[in-house]
């Protein structure tokens, strides 16, 4: 049994148009999901594919219209389990400014544990531990407003880590960051996954970010349309394109070369791999 499991998940919402007519929009349309504890999962999809809606279901911020989602065997629909679900599945959002509550870094990290009612003596320890894990301990007394985007996002991650979740959902955490910030945040997330064994669900539309994931899900029109290891998914270039997704540049280049007649393997993910494959061709 996985840490996050969904069966026949469907989510409808009503959209009000300017002429005051209502339209029913189906954001999720029968999603089945089973995430093994300790995995690094990436969910890909273009805008409006339903990936953010799915993320909010994992944290019980949204409840399914139909179907069920279980976090650590707890059904998110039960009102009495709401805080248990949110403690187990932490969530990091896109805009770092809009999710930091404290006016000082360590106060913000303490916000989650304070809400959970962790005893005072233990909060400080948790905050220090969480800030160390994301490499932000030396900024603990600073105002979040003085930090860079990547640093703020790491503080936000620390805020979730301090709640000791089993699983962290990151909803396009790097979309508003510069390249350095993106790299720092991704490294932090990978470290958490490898060293602490926290399950990570990364939602993104940057192909490069999913290369190191254990499993990739591609979403389109509220459905999971592709699933597999990055190599499996990225070797199906044409199928990906039909879902309006791109592949990493180097994968695309390898695919084009293969089409042009070179005997290259499918699903090349990194520049090094392509170099090796090309060098192997010469011999």
């Amino acid at each position, binding site marked *: 049994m996985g840490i996050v499991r969904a069966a026949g998940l469907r989510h409808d919402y009503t959209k009000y148009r300017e002429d005051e007519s209502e339209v029913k929009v189906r954001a999720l349309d029968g999603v089945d999901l089973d995430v093994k504890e300790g995995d690094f999962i990436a969910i890909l999809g273009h805008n409006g594919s339903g990936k953010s809606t799915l993320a909010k279901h994992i944290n019980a911020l949204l409840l399914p219209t139909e179907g069920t989602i279980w976090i650590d065997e707890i059904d998110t629909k039960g009102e009495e389990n709401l*805080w248990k679900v949110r403690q187990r599945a932490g969530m990091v*959002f896109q*805009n770092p*400014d*809009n999710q930091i*509550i404290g*006016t000082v870094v360590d106060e913000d990290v303490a916000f989650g544990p304070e809400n959970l*009612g962790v005893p005072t003596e233990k909060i400080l320890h948790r905050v220090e531990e969480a800030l160390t894990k994301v490499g932000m301990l030396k900024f603990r007394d600073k105002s979040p*407003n003085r930090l860079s985007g990547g640093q703020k996002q790491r503080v936000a991650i620390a805020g979730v880590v301090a709640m000791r979740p089993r699983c962290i959902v990151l909803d396009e955490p790097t979309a508003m960051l510069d390249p350095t910030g993106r790299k720092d945040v991704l490294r932090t997330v990978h470290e958490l996954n490898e060293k602490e064994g926290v399950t990570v669900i990364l939602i993104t539309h940057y192909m490069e970010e999913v290369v190191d994931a254990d499993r990739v899900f591609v979403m389109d029109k509220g459905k999971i349309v592709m699933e597999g290891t990055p190599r499996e998914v990225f070797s199906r270039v044409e199928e990906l394109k039909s879902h309006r997704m791109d592949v990493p540049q180097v994968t695309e280049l390898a695919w084009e070369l293969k089409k042009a007649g070179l005997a290259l393997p499918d699903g090349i993910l990194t520049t090094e791999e392509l170099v090796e494959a090309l060098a192997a061709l010469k011999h």
Partner: protein
Amino acid sequence: MLGEITLGQYYPADSVIHRLDPRVKFVGTLTFIVALFLVKGFLGYVMVTLFLLGVIKASTVPFGMMLRGMKAIIFILLITAVFNVFLTPGEIVLVKVWKLTITREGVLQAVRMAVRLIYLVIGSSLMTLTTTPNSLTDGMEALFSPLKVIHVPVHEIAMMMSIALRFIPILTEETDRIMKAQIARGADFKTGSFINRIKNMVPLLVPLFVSAFQRANDLAMAMEARCYHGGEGRTRMKPLRYTAADRVGYLVLALFLAAAILLRIFGGGWI
């Protein structure tokens, strides 16, 4: 364009007053204001002045910082002085020009009011100068928490205040950005009549409000995701705890208030 707003004008230092519990400082400011309007007679004013000077000295905040707050009230100060000088009835007439008379009582009343107002401003800026906005909010939440019994949302108000403090610089920056964007498209915020300038603010305020609502929505979601469910069952990382110094502080305040009451009753004196 909009400089960095220093809210609460906190002056960082490590003094006895800075280290005091915010609750002590808040209660202290209130006590000081009460005493200020309670005392009568020359001796009373001497005592209040000495107390104020003592606290200023202990706070190590430069005196000039305190006078900054004075600019804002200079107008009120002048008006009250003028009204008191001309409109206080009295027996000993000093000057009489046409229908206006200046009496000895009027002059004394004006001086009294001016001194009280100036001390009031200095006293309250001492609190904001030595306490960070955050601990001030914490202190107020703790002090007013008995009001929860009569359903005053004390925790919620404190939470709103601290969120406002966090978002002031962000929204300032945003205003700056929108302003620049509008100026680049030909908007004019600096010239024209007063009415026109206000009208020109509309294209600035609308996007600012839209973005503020968006941020509020995001923040609410982020808070819920981190299990926020009001003040109930919440613990604190840094709860307010009284130390020996705070107890001494309360004792000093009690003595000060007692002295002020005694001077009210027994102190006559010339003023």
